[in-house]
């Protein structure tokens, strides 16, 4: 099944940015989740944290202006905003593990309806690398995932139980996909549909989702923003 009008990565990132509150302390995972920062809502000022010891960083510097001692967890050059702070790695993960971060936004290979997340390793092949993902999912007050709704070959990424190695157990509370916004009711191990693309039927959405989508009250319309 080919679904028309799916959100692209930028649009998914835009949607996730709508839920970030003013003053929130936010860690964005390497790659796709980094895009969320660009869609910060006017009038709100989230403070971005990077594992390697910076709070309050801003956009990338102009090309040629990089200082390679000033990078983010993805090893990309960054700049500082007024009110930034540097600290060592133990303090950085004290912020994470100690529950001081409001939001962590990560990518996913699979998310299960019990909140389990798999996002660090496909199988036994190649070089495994975990970085700070396992700390983030166990520490942030809210753990959100950005992902295409299905894999490149059309398999569900939202599943009953993860088959890939886990990053964390019962940790994801909201998933932003190319088709929908879905909350995870961890206590009851179920997905609860929050928003979906207007033109997409419940049956079609369910058919590309690997676990039952529950509905409580109204399902909102997932906005398709026009991004320049």
């Amino acid at each position, binding site marked *: 099944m080919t679904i028309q009008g799916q959100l692209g990565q930028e649009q998914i990132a835009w949607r996730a940015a709508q839920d970030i509150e*003013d*003053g929130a*302390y936010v860690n964005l995972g390497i790659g796709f989740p980094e895009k969320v920062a660009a869609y910060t809502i006017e009038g709100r*000022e989230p*403070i971005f*944290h990077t594992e390697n010891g*910076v*709070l*309050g960083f801003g956009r990338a510097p102009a090309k040629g202006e990089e200082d390679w001692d000033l990078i983010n967890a993805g090893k990309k050059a960054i700049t*500082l*905003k*007024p*009110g*930034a*702070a*540097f*600290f060592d790695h*133990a*303090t950085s*993960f*004290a*912020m*994470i*593990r*100690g*529950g*001081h*971060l409001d939001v962590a936004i990560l990518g996913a290979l699979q998310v299960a309806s019990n909140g389990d997340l798999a996002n660090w390793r496909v199988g036994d092949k190649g070089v495994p690398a975990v970085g700070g993902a396992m700390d983030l999912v*166990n*520490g942030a007050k809210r753990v959100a995932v950005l992902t295409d709704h299905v894999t490149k070959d059309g398999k569900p990424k939202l599943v009953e139980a993860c088959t890939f190695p886990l990053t964390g157990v019962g940790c994801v509370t909201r998933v932003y996909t190319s088709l929908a916004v879905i909350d995870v009711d961890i206590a009851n191990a179920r997905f609860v549909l929050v928003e979906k693309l207007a033109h997409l039927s419940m049956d079609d959405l369910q058919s590309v989702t690997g676990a039952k989508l529950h509905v409580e009250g109204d399902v909102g319309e997932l906005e398709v923003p026009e991004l320049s």
Partner: protein
Amino acid sequence: MNKRFATAAEAVADVFDGATVMIGGFGGSGAPIELIHALIDAGPKNLTVVNNNAGNGHVGLAAMIEQGMVRKLICSFPKSKDPKAFTDRYLAGEIELELVPQGTLAERIRAGGAGIPAFYTPTAYGTELGEKKPTAEFDGKPYVQERWLKADFALVKAELGDPYGNLTYRLAARNFNPLMATAAGKTIAQVSRLVEAGGIDPEAVVTPGIFVNRLVEIANPRQEEVLNQAEARYP
């Protein structure tokens, strides 16, 4: 982003009866006297207080104890030049004492802030302060298991603060303040000078703002030692 509160009274207004309150300082050095006195004015009761000491004279923590606000004290060294406020109540059985070795106290608070629920330390093994605690051997050496310590509120004294809550400390007034700032639900800092964002070199920040919820500027803060030499009393 502006964590500034106009007055110490507003900053501590929601400290509730029965709360656990960490108070920074080592003796008078780094003791947030104005926040403590604002808390005395507010008057919550049955508090559990975490501090290295138990007050000196009749100001600050000693005055809180005299006002009968403190049900339990968690500290390492409840002695001072003039420890009467605590001593009288302790000997009368009116205040509970949990005595913790100083390094274990510091580490328990740090663990609370860092999401480490328990750790092992050699400190107090084989002593009465290590009794009744789980023990374990690592590489042939015995250790005591200690639990994290967290609080509902932390009152800390800092030197510079900015609107984001970034803090620096003056001289040895640092001590427990940066640890306690990390381990409380609400961390309330009195700063001697509130500067604008960018007014603290990011490399010089000691407590990053993520750990701080509220800031009150108290220019020229009082020093417990100086107050005691003047035989001050609060209220």
